[in-house]
C-alpha cells in the first residue's frame, strides 16, 4: 500500500482534514469545558435586528415571487436593447424599425399573458 503512487495523496488528504477539523474541535472543547453558559430566552431568540422575533425562521416563500423576478428580467433585458435603439432611431431603416417593433411586441405579449393569468395581482 505504501508503494502505491496515490499514498502521498491520502496522507495529504488526512492532514488537510485534520488541519480543518482540529481548530473546530479545540474551539468546541474550549466552549464545552471552560465557557460558563448563560442562556436566557432573550439571548436564544431569533436575531431580527433587535426586534421581537415573530414565528419560526424556517418559513417557506411563495413560488409566485419567482414570476415577478422573471417578468422583471424581461423588461430589464428590454431596456438594454431599447437604449441603443432610441439613440440610433433617426438613422434606422424601416426593416430595422420593424424588427425592433416585433421584439417589443413579443415582450408586450408576454406581459399581456401574465396579466391575463392574474400574475400581477397580489393574492
Amino acid at each position, binding site marked *: 500500500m505504501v508503494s502505491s503512487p496515490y499514498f502521498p495523496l491520502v496522507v495529504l488528504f488526512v492532514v488537510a482534514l485534520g488541519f480543518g477539523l482540529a481548530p473546530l474541535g479545540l474551539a468546541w472543547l474550549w466552549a464545552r469545558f471552560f*465557557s*460558563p453558559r448563560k442562556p*436566557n430566552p*432573550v*439571548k436564544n431568540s431569533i436575531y431580527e435586528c*433587535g*426586534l421581537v422575533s415573530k414565528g419560526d425562521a424556517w418559513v417557506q416563500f411563495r413560488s409566485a415571487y419567482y414570476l415577478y423576478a422573471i417578468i422583471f428580467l424581461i423588461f430589464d433585458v428590454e431596456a438594454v436593447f431599447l437604449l441603443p435603439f432610441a439613440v440610433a432611431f433617426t438613422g434606422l431603416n424601416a426593416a430595422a424599425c420593424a424588427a425592433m417593433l416585433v421584439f417589443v411586441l413579443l415582450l408586450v405579449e408576454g406581459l399581456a399573458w401574465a396579466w391575463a393569468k392574474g400574475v400581477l395581482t397580489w393574492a
Partner: protein
Amino acid sequence: MAIEENLKIELGKQGVFVTTLEELYNWGRRSSIWPMQFGLACCAIEMIATTMARYDLARFGAEVFRPSPRQADLMIVSGTVTKKMAPQVVRLYNQMAEPRYVIAMGACAISGGPFKQGYNVLKGIDRYIPVDVHIPGCPPRPEALIQAFMTLQKKIDEQPLTGENRPRFLNQNAQGEFPVPEPADHDLEPPSNPGVWSAPVVIR
C-alpha cells in the same frame, strides 16, 4: 500575579519572556475586540471615520464590525437612543455572547445630550445596560473613540480571571439577562434597570 513585575522586566532584558496564562488570555481578548455594526445617529459617522484609512481602527484589532450580535464583543452605542429604539438596543445587547462590553459614545448615549429634555429621548443607555467606557463629545472625534478603545483594552488587560473581581462572563452566578424595557403610556417600563443604574445623588 504569579511573578513579580520587576523580575519580569529584568528577565525581559536578558531575553527571557515570561507570562502568565491570565495575561496571555487577556492579551488575546483585548487584541480582537469585534464591535457590532450598528449606528444610531451622527456619532456613527465618526465611528465610520474611525474605521477608515486615516484613523485605522484595525491597528487595535477592532476593524471587524460584525453585522450579528452573536459574533460581536463590543457594542458602541453611537448616538441618541430614543425611547423607541432603547428596547432594540437592550435586546441586541442581550443577544451578544459573553464577554461583552459597551462604549457609550457621545453626550446623547451618556445622558441624552442636547435632547435630554425631549419627551422621546432616553437619558443615557447606562439606565439599562452596564457601560464600560463613556466618551463625551458631540460627536466625539475619532481620536476620542480610539482613546475609548485603549481604555477598554486596558480594562480587559487588568481583569483577573479568578477571584472575587473576575468578570461577569467567568462568574457562573452573575446576571446574564438584562430586562428589555417595554413601551408604556408615558415612559419605558421599567424606566431603568436598578441592577445597573441608580439615580445620581445631587450634593448641594
